[in-house]
């Protein structure tokens, strides 16, 4: 590849899934309009949604999913040892995600409910950064393909990569959506990181914060808002804990 007279090597990428639905990896394989150009930026070494070839000489590891089994820890550590840059992508990898819901109930109860008492190797769900160092996080359930493309382009061209620091409200207002608080609902938009194009509130579904907290959020004011509107604090906590992105705020 040649860009403005600079020769650029394709980056060697491996994509790996742990406990998850693989929806984020599918997102990358979706959106056919840009798929050929997207793949052209990359040397895919290991990505089962895209190629049956398996190589272990990748530089960048995309890691999807949370960690819920002991063998996953060893596999993740091996990926970390190989990768120069490890990117956690998707809410499961970044925060523990929906899988984290099982941490709220005793483990044997969860196994009995889901697997009818069979012997299952499982442990409380953990995010990737609980086990290894994460260099870059791309949250979202699922991730936004545009954002991943932008970040991959940034990595390839060695230019700055960043996520929006402001909350979802900015994008939501730009879409002229009716504020869901005006419709009597609790929406995590005012405290959740933007970058999703406010897709849930645009569909009149309250934001559940799949992208985690925005930078420097005012949680006290948000909680006051829920109280002032006479909405349920229990409902707020339920939403905050859905993707586990707001774990540090649950006890405040």
């Amino acid at each position, binding site marked *: 590849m040649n*860009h403005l007279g600079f020769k650029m090597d394709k980056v060697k990428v491996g994509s790996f899934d742990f406990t998850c639905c693989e929806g984020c990896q599918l997102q990358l394989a979706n959106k056919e309009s840009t798929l050929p*150009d997207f793949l052209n*930026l990359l040397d895919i070494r290991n990505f089962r949604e895209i190629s049956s070839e398996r190589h272990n000489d990748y530089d960048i590891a995309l890691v999807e999913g949370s960690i819920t089994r002991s063998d996953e820890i060893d596999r993740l550590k091996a990926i970390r040892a190989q990768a120069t840059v490890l990117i956690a992508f998707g809410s499961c990898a970044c925060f523990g995600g929906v899988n984290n819901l099982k941490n709220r109930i005793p483990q044997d109860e969860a196994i009995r409910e889901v697997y009818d008492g069979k012997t299952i190797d499982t442990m409380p769900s953990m995010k990737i950064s609980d086990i290894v160092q994460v260099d870059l996080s791309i949250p979202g359930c699922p991730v936004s393909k545009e954002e991943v493309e932008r970040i991959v*382009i940034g990595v390839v061209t060695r230019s700055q990569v960043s996520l929006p620091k*402001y909350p979802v409200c*900015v994008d939501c*207002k730009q879409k*002229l959506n009716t504020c869901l608080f005006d419709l009597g609902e609790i929406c995590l938009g*005012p405290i959740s990181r933007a970058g999703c194009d406010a897709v849930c509130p645009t569909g009149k579904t309250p934001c559940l914060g799949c992208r985690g907290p925005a930078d420097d959020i005012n949680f006290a004011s948000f909680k006051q808002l829920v109280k002032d509107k006479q909405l349920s604090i229990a409902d707020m906590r339920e939403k905050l804990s859905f993707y586990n992105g707001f774990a540090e705020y649950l006890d405040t």
Partner: protein
Amino acid sequence: MIYKVISKTEFRAFIDAIVKENRAYGPQKVDTGSNGKPIYQFMPVKSAAEIDFDYTVTHSSAKHFFLPYRDELSHFNFTDGNWEQEVNYEAPPTILIGLRPCDINAINILDDVMLHGAYPSPYYLARRKNNFIIGMDHLPLPDCFCHSMNRHTVNHGFNLFCSDIGESYYLSINSSKAYSFLKEFELQEPTYEDNCRLIERRKDIKHSFETKIEVSGLPCFLDIEFDSPIWQKWGDKCLSCGTCAMVCPTCYCYSVEERFDIDLEGSTRQNHLYSCNLVDFAQVTGGHNFRPKNGDRLKYRYYHHYRGFAANDNQQICVGCNRCGRACLADINPKDVINDLRLERESCLTCVLPSPSKT
């Protein structure tokens, strides 16, 4: 300006005719709030029947028709070691229906910022020139304070303005385009009674304002109150979500982003409307943030609206629509913030020593 009177039925026929032929936006009820009140926005319309002529106020302003929330400024094409820039100033002709005097005043203020400065914006100019604005008066809502800002009436910046005088609209025709559009429709010369009704309507509007803010001398108060604890008090409430700036008819601050095309053969430069309340508004290269505190950022929004422009251009850029106050989830509004400032100042004036007497 030419003044005519048109029956409401004939006016609707006129609107119907122009919106069918053009890209048009008008007030439309988009939702009913949990308080039972309708929520309006300027939406695309294809017939007069789709327009709520008797609407109260739109949640967002009409700003984005002139300053889109995201706007492509240019596209760059890379060719062997070189690049070409493509710029597109084209804007489709657009009709905006039902703007309130404060909304039109806001556009006139944006004209001053975007067109009358040292570097006029060709992007803004293209959209502004290709717009046809039909204004409509209304009785103020309890929290409207445009009268305090002297923006409750408007005499330029529109093509046509309609004052509701009962069965008819009293039309102020302010462009040859509007005049020729109306030629096909039945208009009357205003009668003595019509003139009386217009004056009554104006009085009625003027006397219906319930919210008043004292803004005279405010630039000076703001200078004095730069270090006031009031900014932290309101900043502690602020969610830094940028909602106020997004719905505001005059907030025009923006950021510029450049993005590569995915094939790396080109890139775009985009303008993105931003808010001075957002956490990284004043963050610079290297990471230093000049305004890391909510209260400081909130303060600067008030300074921009009520001080900076008043000092530099003899006008405040707030038009008193209170969209920010209505939309703010943290219940921050100009009336309470400004009253808070003045209250502090006036209460401390009471403890000043009496003037010395001569004897």
